[in-house]
């Protein structure tokens, strides 16, 4: 899922400083699961913002709503009346959701309440780790299902580097060396021979280096 984290209240206060009637929109999908932008966080940040603004002598009127998904027009369109009766929108979705709102509601500012971080998983209670960069040409089959593109700090495709230890990556003691994980995993599934092959340089064209990507699936078009 997409993992995000909330911006500090101080920054949000700056962002909405010009408005005194605003719509806070939560998203019921990824950011709800990662406890950053669901109904609950919208509630908590509304309390904080109202109090902060009252203390600053400029009360703010906040309307709260959380929709199923902010990245799909089907769910966004019902927001129109609420957007209309407010001066601006503070979106608690990932960057994609914020932009979806911004492109739909042309006459209202739409601001991001979260810092969108990465594609990852819930590793432990309230601990998320990054697993995929969305490189557009997945190589997981070669590496026993562990992504060196994302999880090796140097993105080595023929690792490990000289600084690797069994415990951790040389750049961060809290992070396992991706290549140690790859080695253990390939050993476990009897595919250590894969390490004999030299992996050629990665073709980055399918990744975002060519600008924002677009996918069209003709078989599902109407």
């Amino acid at each position, binding site marked *: 899922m997409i993992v995000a984290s909330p911006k500090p*209240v*101080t920054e949000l206060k700056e962002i909405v400083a010009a408005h005194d009637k605003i719509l806070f929109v939560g998203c019921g999908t990824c950011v709800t699961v990662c406890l950053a932008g669901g109904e609950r966080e919208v*509630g908590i940040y509304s*309390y*904080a913002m*109202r*109090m902060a603004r009252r*203390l600053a002598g400029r*009360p703010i009127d906040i309307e709260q709503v959380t929709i199923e998904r902010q990245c799909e027009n089907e769910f966004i369109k019902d927001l129109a009346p609420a957007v209309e009766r407010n001066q601006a929108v503070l979106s608690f979705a990932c960057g994609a959701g914020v932009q979806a709102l911004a492109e739909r509601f042309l006459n209202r500012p739409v601001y991001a309440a979260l810092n969108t971080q990465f594609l990852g998983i819930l590793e432990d209670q309230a601990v998320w780790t990054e697993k995929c960069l969305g490189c557009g040409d997945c190589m997981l089959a070669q590496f026993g299902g562990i992504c060196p593109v994302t999880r090796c700090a140097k993105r080595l495709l023929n690792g490990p580097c000289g600084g690797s230890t069994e415990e951790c990556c040389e750049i961060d003691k809290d992070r396992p060396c991706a290549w140690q994980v790859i080695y253990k995993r390939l050993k476990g599934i009897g595919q250590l021979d894969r390490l004999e092959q030299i992996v050629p340089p990665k073709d980055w064209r399918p990744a975002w280096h060519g600008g924002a990507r677009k996918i069209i699936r003709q078989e599902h078009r109407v």
Partner: protein
Amino acid sequence: MTAAHTQPGASAANKGAWEPEIIAFCCNYCAYAAADLAGAQRMQYPPNVRVVHSPCTGKIEMEHILAALEKGIDGVLVAGCLEGGCHFIEGNLRAKHRVEHIRGILDEIGIGADRLRMVNLSAAMAPTFVERVREIVDTVTNLGPNPLKESAQQGVVSK
């Protein structure tokens, strides 16, 4: 959550002077029982505290605390079991982290973290309960009224 005990601010109305209004969210298995015991033993503590009976401090959502402060309450005490003694194993540890998070927000928005405090005690620790109540009443008395109090009482609160 159920009933309240004492009448907060009752003495303030009589004297016309500001007296802190404190909410104590008390876990059923420790602080609530300790407050009960304190009462049964006729121990005196400031009447500024309204006790809110909670099944566990882990059940106290951040929104409950923020809502109380937005409505103008001067201080909030979250009273749970001793660490390691939670009847739901880790409810009080969850509460501790939530309280810390809200204290950070309170500092950020200018209300001040000191208006919110979490304490740990057992059901038998009535004197400790009384002491913690006195401490937060003192702290909040020194801080003065919640700056949101006035506008809250004018009905500005929207929720």
